[in-house]
């Protein structure tokens, strides 16, 4: 049995990089937070017999400790529910020795809304920003299956906390360069013809710690700011037709009803093409942390533009130059200028199994799997390497392959037990192939002579190193 190292994982020394202090502090804070979370998980693993294996799951064994308590409950007594012990989103129930010898829980005793198993404990992981109002959490991609992200695990980015909004009182006002300004209640919006579409949303800061060298340990830390849901709502084009957009209109300001009154300017051609006002997520109302009751969805655009808690759309001839599109979400590149309105999230993929902090139990068959996505449309091909990029092989892609959505890929692999370097790269329907991180840094200059701490829009190839003992570590920049 491997002894857990009390000192925790070690991280690369960044002192050789002349980074701006705020960028350095940001990366160090992310390292510390990930370290704490990994150590907590390892501490749980120490206590149980489940620490070997590809998907270490401390819960399964820990839960059996409660079996004794279960036995103490007399037959016919109400089940003992210790909610405090259950993972978020689950309820703690006693585990019978033999589930075939006692009746199970009562039908609909959950009040009519189910919860996940008490043995499943995957959760979002929060980046340790100074305040919890302005912060973000990352989706546990390694545990993900298929292409849909469970609503409760969708990544978050808030700038002024999560507002509590009564939908009965929420309205959307559309005004500016239009013939008939309108105010819509949620009931009004739901009367319009609706559509459902599966799309990813990715924060343009996804991967910010990996620009210079491998940094965070897990795929949740390196890639967890992307999630896919089925969204339901009204095409924005329907609303624009209703209000009668005036000639010369070129931009629309979208504004949220949170404490940040978040605003972004959206090009009107995007608004006419595939933008949506969504009130549904994965078959139910959109979650509060995703914008309840109404969110602007701009398929393929950086996450910040998908304004949550949407209360206002103002049609104009010029962009509004809000804080989030000038001082933030802009990329300083090597000539000292900052790229602005860098909306598109370009083609990207990542292997989620095997990935950082996992351990392969020994040589033999493994199914390499991961996700690929592009803001420009469908994924055309995904290729996988197990030899550090010397040879690439087509992965199989799970259909239907949807435009601007996570696409699940799989690749069968016989591991011979020698060190391996695993990575994926994707090509979208425009022919754009996911570049290496080095190529991106070469063009933008982030890792060249000047280091300006540009932190957005990293879509480079991600690699994982499998050691001879089966441990998997972050090998970004090695492919």
């Amino acid at each position, binding site marked *: 049995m491997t002894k857990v190292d009390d000192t925790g994982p070690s991280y690369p020394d960044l002192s050789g990089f002349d980074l*701006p202090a705020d960028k350095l502090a940001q990366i160090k804070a992310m390292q510390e937070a990930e370290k704490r979370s990994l150590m907590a998980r390892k501490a749980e693993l120490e206590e149980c017999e489940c620490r070997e294996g590809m998907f270490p799951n401390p819960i399964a064994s820990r839960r059996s400790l409660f079996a004794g308590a279960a036995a103490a409950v007399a037959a016919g007594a109400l089940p003992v529910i210790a909610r405090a012990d259950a993972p978020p989103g689950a309820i703690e129930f006693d585990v019978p020795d033999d589930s075939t010898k006692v009746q199970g829980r009562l039908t609909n005793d959950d009040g009519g809304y189910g919860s996940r198993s008490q043995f499943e404990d995957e959760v979002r992981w929060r980046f340790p920003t100074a305040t919890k109002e302005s912060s973000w959490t990352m989706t546990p991609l390694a545990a993900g299956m298929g292409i849909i992200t469970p609503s409760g695990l969708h990544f978050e980015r808030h700038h002024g906390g999560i507002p509590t909004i009564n939908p009965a009182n929420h309205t959307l006002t559309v005004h500016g360069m239009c013939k008939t300004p309108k105010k819509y209640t949620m009931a*009004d919006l739901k009367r319009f013809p609706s559509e459902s579409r599966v799309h990813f949303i990715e924060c343009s800061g996804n991967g910010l710690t990996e620009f210079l060298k491998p940094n965070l340990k897990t795929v949740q830390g390196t890639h967890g700011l992307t999630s896919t849901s089925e969204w339901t709502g009204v095409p924005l084009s329907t609303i624009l037709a209703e209000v009668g957009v005036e000639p010369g209109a070129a931009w629309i300001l979208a504004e949220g009803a949170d404490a940040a009154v978040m605003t972004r300017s959206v090009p009107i051609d995007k608004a006419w093409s595939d933008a949506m006002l969504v009130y549904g997520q994965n078959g139910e109302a959109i979650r509060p942390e995703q914008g309840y009751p109404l969110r602007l969805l701009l398929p393929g655009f950086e996450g910040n533009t998908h304004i949550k808690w949407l209360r206002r759309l103002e049609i104009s001839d010029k962009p509004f130059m809000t804080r989030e599109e000038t001082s933030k979400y802009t990329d300083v590149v090597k000539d000292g200028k900052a790229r602005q309105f860098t909306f598109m999230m370009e083609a990207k993929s990542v292997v989620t199994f095997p990935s950082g902090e996992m351990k392969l139990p020994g040589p033999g068959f493994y199914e390499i799997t991961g996700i690929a996505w592009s803001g420009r449309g469908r994924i055309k091909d995904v290729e996988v390497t197990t030899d550090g990029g010397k040879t690439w092989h087509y992965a199989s892609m799970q259909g239907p392959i949807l435009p601007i959505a996570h696409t699940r890929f799989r690749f069968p692999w016989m591991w011979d037990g020698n060190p391996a370097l695993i990575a994926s790269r994707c090509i979208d329907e425009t022919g754009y192939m996911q570049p290496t991180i080095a190529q991106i840094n070469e063009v933008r200059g982030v890792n060249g002579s000047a280091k300006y701490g540009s932190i957005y829009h990293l879509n480079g190839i991600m690699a994982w190193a499998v050691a001879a003992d089966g441990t998997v570590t972050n090998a970004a920049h090695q492919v």
Partner: protein
Amino acid sequence: MTKKPFTRVSMHTALSVSVLLASGAFAATANAEKFGFGTTPTAEEIAAINIDVMPDGRGYPSGSGTVAQGKEIYTQQCASCHGDDMQSVKGTGADALIGGRGSIGTEKTKKTVESYWPYASTLFDYIKRAMPFTAPGSLTNDEIYAVSAYILHKGNIIDADATMNAETMSKVEMPNKDGFIPDPRPDVFNYR
């Protein structure tokens, strides 16, 4: 209100006519049928939430404030997070507001209102909608003009005796006004 139900064809017509409207063609002849849901907001209702301010001066409310007034408000409302020196108080998450001019694109890049923000309107707009953090949207327009004036003065952008109002604020030229370029991506070409 009676309406015949929309067919797929009529909806397409409505949309395409509107697209043409947006481009300016056939503006006089179009009279597309609409769903007609929603209500017409009053001018007051729109004004209550139409708080944005644009670089060309559109949207600035009436009111004014001086650098001296701004110093007082800053001390009361802003300094606890942004710092008396506007360099941000460690652990608050607040940004530094001044300094770093000319540093963008160098190895000592420091992004502040002074060094990076291209428009003064963004400063007014952001304070009005989101500041102070513990009581967002609580400052009066006069107070926002004043505290904007103080920050711009400390950033050596306006004089100590300046008064900010709709007119003067829209004329402020920020040091990094030419620092931004459109998105040129795709910027790596491995096409196949």
